[in-house]
């Protein structure tokens, strides 16, 4: 898409292994993940079930568990994995460029 842009979100070391942090940009909020095998991912910041920040949740393997109702998503694909989440989570491309994590958003 023409209006897509890469945004510098954080330094790679700001996210611990198998953890998640919140990244706000304008009026939008995102969740940035670092997996146990040192890969980085990004999704929308709010759970699709209710409006709660996923960054307060728990990363378990390739899944993020929502802090409010324990619904789970695969944060790599956005797929809903456990009720009460039923709607998939939007994911975003991420790159690690010399220790800076970039997220591609529209």
């Amino acid at each position, binding site marked *: 898409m023409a209006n897509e842009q890469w945004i510098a979100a954080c330094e790679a070391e700001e996210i611990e292994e198998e953890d998640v942090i919140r990244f706000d940009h304008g009026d939008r909020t995102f969740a940035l993940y670092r997996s146990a095998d040192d890969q980085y991912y990004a999704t929308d910041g709010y759970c699709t079930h209710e409006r709660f920040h996923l960054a307060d*949740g*728990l990363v378990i393997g390739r899944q993020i*568990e929502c*802090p*409010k*109702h*324990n619904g789970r998503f695969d944060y790599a694909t956005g797929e809903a994995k*456990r*009720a009460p989440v*039923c709607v998939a989570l939007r994911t975003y491309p991420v790159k690690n460029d010399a220790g800076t994590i970039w997220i591609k958003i529209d």
Partner: protein
Amino acid sequence: MVPTATRKRDYRLTGPENALARQKGLAAAEWYVCPVPRPKLKQLMKRKDGPAIRDTLLWFGALAAAGYAAYLSWGTWWAIPAFAVYGVLYASPADSRWHECGHGTAFKTPWMNEAVYQIASFMILRPATPWRWSHARHHTDTIIVGRDPEIVAPRPPVWRVILMESFKLYGGPRDLKRMLLHCFGKLDAEEREYIPASEIPKTCWESRVYVLIFAAVVIACLYGGTVLPALFIVLPSFYGSFLVLLTGMSQHLGLYEDVLDHRLNTRTTYMNPILRFLYWNMNYHTEHHMFPMVPYHALPKLHEEIRHDCPAPSPSLAAALREVFQALARQRKDPTYTIVRPLPETARPYRYGPAEETGAAQARQTNESLAK
């Protein structure tokens, strides 16, 4: 217009209080959370299989032993206490295992959570899918009138319903009626409030399986010419449920409605190790509501972590129930009566939310002046 705090309120999810709660910003709102450093919280949220496997084996072992003793005592007066023990060991842990496994936190392994959740849901006669959604709503809108389907007693309380619930004679028939509706592909109006359309087929199939099991139990009773099969399965959900009611009553009753701070509307109660085993640490209820990600076995540690920011726990189940029954008795005459629990000096102030300027604050002022 009569102020909300003094008018008899409509607790139905299909009534006008639902829209009112949304208007006030009480629905799906942001709640107060005690400060816990992220590294500590991550430790507390860590999942394990060991404690839940141990406790599940202990539970089913105890249930089998009590069941065998009850079977041997059949035909004698000893059958009464034997089945009472069996009923409590059946219903109470089924209630707490339903709860913990519904959150998916009891075991680390997802299929174990799901397996125990399905079994416990049947045992406590709370069909797995609708009650999963009911409980999700309870966590979103805890004790928000018109939004929370799991408010145990309205204000003023209806004593007849509370008495009936000692043997699940209010909620039980309601759920059985809903199961029959599900068998025909229908949901009642309250359930449609919180169960999404995509979950309706699963809801219906689960209820059909439950009804088939009920039919099998009835046939076994008729074929054997004895009520024994039903005394071991299905009926314990009724005759064994008085402890479920008592522990359930200790969770929120007498405390605030329509606030956005679990320290105001939820009670933590110290219990002895036996009750904590049966109840799977749900006595740390404020902690659970504030941090539903923390598994039951880590709740005592979470309690220590946040106790400086919370009102003093009730010292025992008896003390909690005494407080609850006294509050309910007062609410018979004054539905606005609310228990006020002071915070320690180390705590952050309560967050009353939008209710600060209306009912909750009025109740607080009234009760504080009464307490002086």
